[in-house]
């Protein structure tokens, strides 16, 4: 008997601060003006997407002590934009990345619960941790967390917010004019949470929101991140773009759910994906090549290399070979505030792999950077892209994708107009929203009472 056909989940990442966003295209608009967000959100909603996704960065990236100036710089506040977008959309989920290191549970819980009320049940929170003192210099606490404590704090942070979300059952407000009873339970919102990172008590002030609690996303890929996702998240924003890597990740993470008393459908796996469309596959390939050249100028290639090498490589020719010298291991002093820096934990090995690749394919620095940093997941005609996306999902490499267009704000228009109808024809993507909340779109069912598993992931530092 064949497997049932899976329905694909699609979401749109706003193309703002991001090394893949092409700002030099004449069609590129503002990454700040609200009109840009409205355009992308309305396109995504018109196409029936599950949600719009916003990333975050709490300090501007720097290189050699100066603010990085080659890619898009500057973005608005995530929660504020999402609340405003709730006014111009009806169904689209509104997902924001909010860091658990430089925020406090009471404030974040009230913000997301408020967003969920104000959007009638469309809020999602992508929980991330910050990794460096560089970011901490913008906050009261400064850089205060040891690396090993970051996930501990993230887990405890989520458990604390979860307790706050669940501190109201949802039936306390009766507001009966005649009897004068507004609140059925004088203790509504009571919480008491004492763990190593948080010592908080009192009453939460936002009554239970339409989704009970926002949809929880997780975006890390470490062992701890995967376990965190399996225990507590509703969706994972992963980076595994190839079929093989995607299937391995999917099997691994879905396999962890049972240990936490959850079923595979309780967690959706949604890798980030880019796309380039064309009238023919060759046309799309040509466009993809042009886009990659726009994304990676010679200067950008050198600066990207410096992020791995941790050295000034300004004297190197981007059209020449890779440096003979090795990366400088240890504390990063050249590039700061970049995700890439923390992700490459073994620069010597990566540099060796890059040299071998450049050698084998006869690549210049710029060509190599284009080769190793690009993730243009889907290139081809709309028919080919629709078929590829479908095959990824049906073969359990993912449950869908978070699409990262390269143009702000019109980068999703063509996809919505050409690929989405083909997915609908295949019967793998909705033609209309069936529910009204993001949990409905993701097929997650209503948020129940807190799972024991979520609390169980909180362990004290020993």
């Amino acid at each position, binding site marked *: 008997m064949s497997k049932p056909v899976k329905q694909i989940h699609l979401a749109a990442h706003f193309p703002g601060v991001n090394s893949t966003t092409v700002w030099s295209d004449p069609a590129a608009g503002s990454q700040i003006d609200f009109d840009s967000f409205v355009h992308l959100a309305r396109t995504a909603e018109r196409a029936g997407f599950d949600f719009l996704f916003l990333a975050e960065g709490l300090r501007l990236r720097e290189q050699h002590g100066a603010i990085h100036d080659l890619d898009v710089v*500057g973005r608005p506040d995530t929660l504020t934009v999402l609340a405003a977008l709730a006014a111009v959309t009806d169904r689209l989920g509104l997902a924001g990345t909010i860091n658990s290191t430089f925020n406090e549970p009471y*404030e974040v819980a009230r913000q997301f619960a408020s967003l969920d009320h104000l959007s009638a049940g469309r809020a999602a929170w992508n929980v991330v941790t910050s990794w460096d003192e560089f970011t901490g210099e913008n*906050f009261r606490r400064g850089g205060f967390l040891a690396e090993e404590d970051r996930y501990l704090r993230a887990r405890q942070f989520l458990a604390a917010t979860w307790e706050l979300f669940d501190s109201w059952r949802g039936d306390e407000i009766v507001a009966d004019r005649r009897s004068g009873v507004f609140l059925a339970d004088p203790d509504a919102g009571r919480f008491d949470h004492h763990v190593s990172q948080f010592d*908080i008590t009192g009453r939460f002030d936002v009554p239970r929101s339409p989704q009970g609690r926002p949809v929880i996303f997780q975006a890390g890929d470490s062992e701890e991140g995967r376990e965190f996702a399996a225990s507590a998240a509703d969706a994972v924003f992963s980076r595994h773009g190839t079929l093989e890597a995607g299937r391995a990740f999917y099997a691994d993470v879905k396999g962890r759910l049972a240990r936490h008393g959850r079923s595979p459908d309780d967690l959706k796996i949604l890798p980030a994906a880019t796309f380039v469309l064309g009238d023919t596959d060759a046309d799309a390939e040509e466009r993809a090549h042009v886009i990659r050249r726009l994304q990676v100028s010679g200067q950008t290639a050198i600066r990207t290399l410096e992020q791995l090498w941790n050295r000034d490589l300004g004297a190197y020719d981007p059209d020449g070979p890779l440096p003979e010298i090795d990366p400088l291991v240890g504390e990063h002093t050249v590039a700061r505030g970049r995700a890439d820096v923390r992700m490459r934990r073994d620069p010597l090995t990566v540099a060796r792999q890059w040299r071998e690749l450049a050698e084998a394919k006869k690549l210049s620095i710029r060509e190599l950077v284009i080769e190793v940093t690009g993730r243009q997941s889907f290139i081809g005609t709309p028919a080919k892209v629709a078929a590829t996306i479908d095959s990824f999902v049906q073969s359990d490499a993912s449950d869908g994708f978070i699409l990262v267009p390269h143009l702000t704000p019109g980068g999703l228009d063509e996809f919505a107009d050409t690929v989405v109808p083909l997915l609908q024809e295949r019967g793998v993507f909705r033609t209309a929203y069936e529910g009204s909340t993001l949990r409905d779109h993701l097929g997650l069912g209503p948020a129940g009472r807190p799972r024991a598993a979520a609390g169980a992931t909180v362990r004290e530092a020993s």
Partner: protein
Amino acid sequence: MPRTHPSLHLAVALDGAGWHPAAWREPDARPGELLSAGYWADLVTEAERGLLDFVTIEDALSLQSGHPTEPDARTDQVRGRLDAVLVAARVAPLTRHIGLVPTVVVTHTEPFHLSKAVATLDFVSRGRAGVRVKVSARRDEAAHFGRRTVPRLPFDDLGTPAAQALVAELFEEAADYVEVVRRLWDSWEDDAEIRDVATGRFIDREKLHHIDFRGSRFSVKGPSITPRPPQGQPLVTALAHDTVPYRLVAGSADLGFVTPHDTAGIRGLLATIRTEQTAAGRADDTVHVFGDLLVFLDDEPGAAADRRARLDALAGAPYRTDAHVFTGTPAQLADLVQEWQRAGLTGLRLRPAALPHDLVQITRGLVPELQRRGAFRTAYEADTLRGLLGLPRPVNRYAAATPAATAAPPGPTVPEAPPAPAAV
């Protein structure tokens, strides 16, 4: 007959079902919808229909309580509310002219987060954002964060040295907070984004500035992650009742809310604020002062007083608040508003006792009455909040420090402050 000075300004303070604790029991109240977007959209669009300068949205980091420093166990009053910045952002795309001023507690929050949130409110409202900064001396709010303890104080007697010291410390921190927020708004020059294809540079990094703030409670490096907002500096406001808070208004704010009870009180507190303004080196800056007034309004003489008595009976006690309480007709209120304006106030912030009733009385009773008298605008004369209040778009402090950049143009989307509206 001399015309009344035309540039009277009016704001309303929105909170729950209204300021009276029994307001939610009024026949036209919507107590089951206080957490819905539609409720807030209706209130703010009504205020905009009345051509009001701005709305403020109350907030706190604790559940409402009848007790000044602790939660209570009452079940007969509105409990539960939404984050005010997000409420303001939610209604911003549904309105075009009215200013949006959410309340933010500065004692437990991060100036970096608040700066970008209000800047973003300014972007999504196209130049209509403000913020009301508020300190918190509540022990229960501190316990919600678990990062600092607040001593138990006899709050009925704020005159004790311990209470005075705490208040002074909290307001000094608030002044630092506002300084950081303002520096972050200026940390991008208006024309920092250059998109220079020839050189491959998206921004001119010489026009982005570390703010390098170091204070006794916290330090912030900067620059902001969010570019300078449309108004350059969104409106900073604070409510003040005493010398220490007046000092915050005079030294840090664009607009202060005060709670006089008569014209003599207005003259006294204005004198204090102007003195503090000079002491803070801001004698030449415009600092608007709005008088707060809690209002029960009905067309029939005596009806408002009856309604107040009826609500007090439902609440079980006479309603007391920091502001003067007015009961009467819109025409009577117009007299008082004009009298207070003549005493030196920029305008009034009216706190509707019950929503939507007293708001509608303001927009459809008071405002037309003031318009008949030539005392209030008949159309919005500006698209930004600073514009409505006659405040110029500030020069960027960092750009001003660079000789070559002194001629930096204002942002493209914001007009210069409009001239004062002509008398009708």
